């Protein structure tokens, strides 16, 4: 296999990596402000994918005539609706989860881990109850699917779209975190929760909004990822592992750390998939074990979650 042949896999890696970064950024914002690891973050990602499927496939709990009318709407419009609406529909799950997590704030992270692990299990079972255990394929509009030939190589159109939509979302997150007062509040609150309250900022409300943002990012990534990974109840776990890995690699509280870490993990998954597709997920878990064993400091020498 020549190196040039790897290019489409590289694109695959970039698309995956950017989506992983989005999941990781939400995970990181929550970890920063609540000082708790949200193991249910992957379940929010999975819910995003399932809700998108329900919207795109017109499989919603709505009156039959409405559904028929909706199914008649062009797929492109239904897909676009799913991209926007699915994250909004998942947001309330994040709000409820934040409510449940309140009792763990300021406590040993073990409480949060156990609680969110339980919530992840509940959400995964809920998905099985509602949608069953089978896999679903997300319908993709014709213009976004299929492939084309460039440089004598076959490229998948949707991966370009996925990478593009992820870049737009990353840009939005960068703007929110780095350029708005809300972003400054989140950073200051993660550093020192007492002072932000003493400055008159309602920390309780701030935490809810951070959860909403993190939830919507995870759900958005779930929507975009659905056509790449397929939709299955276990997909949440496959998403939370790279997020955790990225935060170990990139350090907590660093936007660019998460972006670079995401690309790195995406590349590993994408390129190992080039040689043996069955290996791509396994390679991610192996990388996690390797990083935790040999480089818990992360790539940038910042204090990592493992040392917090």
């Amino acid at each position, binding site marked *: 296999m020549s190196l040039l042949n790897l290019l489409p896999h590289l694109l695959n890696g970039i698309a995956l990596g950017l989506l992983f970064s989005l999941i990781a950024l939400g995970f990181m914002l929550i970890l920063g402000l609540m000082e708790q690891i949200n193991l249910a973050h992957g379940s929010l990602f999975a819910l995003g994918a399932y809700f998108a499927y329900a919207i795109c496939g017109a499989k919603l709990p709505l009156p039959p005539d409405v559904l028929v009318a909706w199914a008649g709407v062009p797929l492109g419009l239904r897909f676009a609706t799913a991209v926007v609406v699915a994250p909004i529909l998942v947001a309330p799950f994040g709000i409820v989860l934040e409510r449940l997590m309140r009792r763990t704030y300021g406590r040993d992270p073990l409480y949060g881990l156990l609680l969110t692990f339980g919530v992840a299990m509940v959400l995964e079972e809920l998905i099985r109850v509602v949608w069953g255990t089978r896999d679903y394929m997300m319908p993709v509009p014709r213009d976004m699917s299929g492939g084309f030939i460039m440089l004598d190589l076959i490229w998948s159109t949707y991966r370009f779209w996925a990478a593009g939509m992820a870049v737009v979302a990353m840009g939005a997150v960068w703007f929110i975190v780095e350029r708005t*007062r809300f972003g400054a509040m989140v*950073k200051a609150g993660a*550093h020192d929760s*007492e*002072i932000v*309250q003493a*400055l*008159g*900022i309602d920390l309780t409300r701030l935490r809810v909004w951070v959860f909403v943002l993190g939830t919507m990012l995870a759900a958005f990534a779930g929507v975009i990822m659905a056509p790449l990974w397929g939709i299955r109840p276990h997909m949440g776990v496959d998403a939370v592992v790279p997020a955790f890995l990225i935060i170990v690699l990139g350090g907590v509280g660093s936007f660019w750390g998460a972006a670079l870490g995401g690309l790195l993990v995406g590349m590993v998954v994408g390129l190992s998939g080039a040689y043996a597709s069955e290996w791509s997920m396994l390679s991610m878990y192996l990388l996690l074990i390797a990083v935790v064993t040999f480089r818990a400091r992360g790539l940038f020498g910042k204090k990592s979650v493992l040392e917090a």
Partner: protein
Amino acid sequence: MLDVSSIDSFYGETQALFSVSLSVRAGEVLALLGANGAGKTTVLRSILGLTRARRGDIRFQGKSITASATHHIACAGIGWVPDDRRLCPTLTVAKNLSLGEKRTAFRAWSLGEVTEIFTPLKYLMAREAETLSGGEMQMVAIARALLGSPGLVLFDEPSQGLAPKIVDDVMAVIRRLRQAGIASIVVEQNADVALGVADRVVVLSQGHVAWAGDVAALTADPGLKRKLLGGLS
């Protein structure tokens, strides 16, 4: 303006304050003095609701704030300049200041007015807080409190770690706030510095109020002053 009556505060099961009472009138500077570990910081933390008073009552502008959320207490018009300044190190000076901006029932301060008082801030806006000197950090911390439009500012050891010249500047600012009608509580280890700006004094000892009265009464009686503040002045 502020009335603290007989508060008891604890860290876990350890009692730090024993029936502490004090009051601050509008536009007045109160010096809160005492040795290491006397409970001065704890008084400020209790007023802010960061360390809850388990017994007693704290009233600000006639309303009880004993059980209020910290952000409500801040929005009522109480500002805080903590002893370790507590800026967000990775944010710029401008961002640190903007976090403090809010409106209250008291006089609002614009960024322009605040940088008139602390002129060096104009050139520091884009710097990250962690790169500032101690004196510059103190300036940002005070400016941040002012931008929150306070009626009362709680200063915790504002002279700590600063060069004498900068201590003078900080005290001049406290005087200036007083002229603008803003009341202050100034916690100090360095008693003479605080007595120079204060109207009244409360001396704490091991979590109890040891003495309270006018600055003049204390400075007029060197024997009393030595007894209360022994090593502190």
